[in-house]
């Protein structure tokens, strides 16, 4: 699936969950829902960090490209390790722990900047530097203005990452959900 589809499904999925089961998102106020939807949409591109030519790999220039190459090598190529339940849970738990630590606001700022930069890149197609600068401004507003990032950001990343796996699950190629136990892909096509 393309980045645009992942973004839209993740944003809509986050808001659908907020409407259908408000308890899951702790009855988040409108500002937190807006911030969460943006970050869920951006986080939906995280699993594609295993593909050096993907949108997320190009988002922050040479830095993200290098990171993508490292992740691709560690995960075993595209649609391997990063598209598994293990990676989904590990990313979500690691982020929740990092946000609870002393440097939580800095982590929130980095994650929000990446999410906003990805959204801007996919929607506008502008240069990576322009997207990154605009995203930094938006992230400062989100983290400082909305506040309580340790509450809504882990939920947003969990939902965004999860919708990516769900979307790729219905494609012909499928995803290796049980990697590394079973490297074969599951497909609901």
């Amino acid at each position: 699936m393309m980045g645009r589809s992942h973004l839209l499904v993740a944003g809509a999925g986050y808001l659908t969950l907020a409407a259908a089961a408000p308890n899951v998102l702790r009855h988040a106020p409108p500002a937190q829902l807006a911030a969460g939807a943006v970050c869920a949409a951006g986080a939906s591109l995280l699993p594609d960090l295993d593909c050096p030519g993907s949108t997320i790999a190009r988002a922050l220039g040479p830095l993200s490209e290098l990171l993508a190459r490292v992740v691709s090598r560690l995960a075993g190529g595209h649609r391997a390790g990063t598209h598994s339940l293990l990676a989904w849970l590990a990313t979500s738990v690691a982020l929740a722990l990092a946000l609870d630590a002393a440097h939580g606001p800095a982590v929130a700022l980095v994650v929000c900047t990446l999410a906003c930069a990805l959204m801007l890149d996919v929607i506008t197609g502008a240069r990576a530097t322009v997207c990154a600068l605009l995203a930094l401004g938006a992230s400062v507003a989100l983290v400082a203005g909305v506040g309580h990032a340790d509450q809504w950001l882990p939920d947003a990343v969990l939902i965004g990452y999860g919708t990516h796996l769900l979307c790729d699950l219905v494609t012909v190629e499928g995803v290796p959900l049980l990697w590394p136990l079973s490297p074969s892909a599951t497909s609901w096509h």
Partner: protein
Amino acid sequence: MAAVAKRYKLALIGATDHWREHLVCLGAGALGAYLALTLIAVPALAATVL
């Protein structure tokens, strides 16, 4: 003949996936816009006005 059939099948699958993805995009966009209005914009506007 088999090669032509295979190519036709691949083209068909590609077209199906192409349109399926467009439908997913359209549906998710419409649903997201509706929910953003009802869950975010309207409550925020009401809180500002009232």
